[in-house]
């Protein structure tokens, strides 16, 4: 439900989405260091694979978006990773289309950036202080921000396109509720797991320059 098919949203929404997506993509790609491309690619692939899992939720099942988690782990790099994953999904699975890609990317990437901006710094200090509860709660919050943000954006893109979509948008918003719940729980568990096993992945924002220097020194 996170992928709006081609030909549904109106031209102004398409153009606005495209412009915002291209601007965010340009900025993120400019920021992206060549030596970080393998990390970004592997994580993008990981999210692509994980989003294929049908997770049971009540009588039906949901596919996770994981954009909140992506924001936590990748920061701005989440934008190109999301764009690449969405382009692959559009071409090979038929979710979305070439022109609506910008809108879909913005719908997924903005909540990811929001989660990155809001949760990442707090989470880093929680990981350092080893506050288990706090880590789980923050992970869940990131998942919730991702899904709720994307759900809101999808509904907004529909409603802004045409007032006739309002009732459909309401139903779509309801379908996001089970997804939000499951995603919140799963993201909390993933973040809790990573905090235990590889806390450095969550501390990147603070330790990145140091690690970079070290590896460069080793190579040179």
């Amino acid at each position: 439900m996170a992928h709006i098919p081609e030909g549904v949203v109106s031209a102004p929404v398409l153009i606005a989405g495209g412009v915002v997506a291209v601007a965010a993509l340009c900025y993120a790609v400019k920021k992206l260091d060549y030596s970080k491309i393998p990390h970004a690619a592997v994580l993008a692939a990981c999210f692509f694979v994980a989003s294929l899992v049908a997770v049971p939720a009540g009588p039906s099942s949901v596919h996770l978006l994981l954009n909140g988690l992506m924001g936590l782990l990748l920061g701005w790099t989440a934008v190109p990773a999301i764009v690449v994953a969405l382009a692959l999904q559009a071409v090979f699975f038929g979710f979305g289309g070439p022109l609506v890609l910008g809108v879909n990317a913005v719908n997924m990437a903005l909540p990811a950036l929001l989660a990155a901006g809001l949760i990442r710094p707090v989470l880093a200090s929680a990981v350092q202080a080893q506050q288990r509860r706090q880590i789980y709660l923050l992970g869940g919050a990131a998942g919730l921000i991702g899904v709720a943000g994307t759900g809101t954006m999808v509904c907004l893109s529909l409603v802004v396109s045409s007032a006739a979509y309002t009732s459909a948008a309401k139903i779509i918003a309801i379908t996001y509720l089970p997804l939000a719940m499951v995603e919140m729980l799963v993201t909390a568990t993933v973040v809790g797991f990573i905090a235990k096993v590889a806390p450095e992945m969550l501390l990147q924002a603070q330790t990145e320059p140091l690690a970079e220097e070290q590896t460069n020194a080793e190579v040179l």
Partner: protein
Amino acid sequence: MLASQLQAQHQLRWLSHTDPRVNMLAAGVFALVAVLSHQLSALVLLLVIALLLNGLAGTRWRSVGKRLLAFETFMLLLVLLLPFSISGQTWFSLWGMTASIEGAKQALAIILRGNAVVLTLLALLAIREPINLGYGAAALGFSPKLIHLFMMTVRYIQVLGEEFARLRNAMKARAFAPASNWHTWRSYGWMMGMLLVRSMERAQRIVDAMRCRGFDGSLYLNQQLQWRRKDSIALALLLLLSLLPLGLQLFLEH
């Protein structure tokens, strides 16, 4: 598991031997035409052309059907409610709500348009190797960093798909049956966490290996695309074909 999903097995004939840029440009123009067409007859023509392209490309009907099913739920939701939310001439009433003919027409237009685009993407792009599309995008002037990210993502989707299948099998071997409960969600969370941690380690190994081989910040594409005459002809034909619906629409309007 994913390799087969990514490269659907088709009996490829046409359109898979052209320059990838031809397919990408044609797909873009086709989507644009789809968005610009609003007359039902033009959209029907668009869908017919999309089916024709699938016939030419030699895609299998089963995979076509699968793809269409995948996005039809979203479409159904939108489309079932549209006749009721747009006011106009009454078509029928149900539980006190009236469906309008205008709404039904608009719903039909959306269905035709969405399906046509999905089918075209299948016929023009999905039959190509993802890496080939990467070369095409590079030749079209996309940022090299983005291209490298795309290429490596395609590669690692396959690798991680296998890794994921292994983890899944390990869970199955321990009698894990997914259900709607806390145990399932936590187990999936751990599995995804494990996949992420292993992926990160793998990424670090890749960077190290690349540095060992003299990685200086730029990767080189090992294939130069050559634009041949038959590519120009194919592109011209495809563009002509995709512009037909717009022509029909203009003709009908005047």
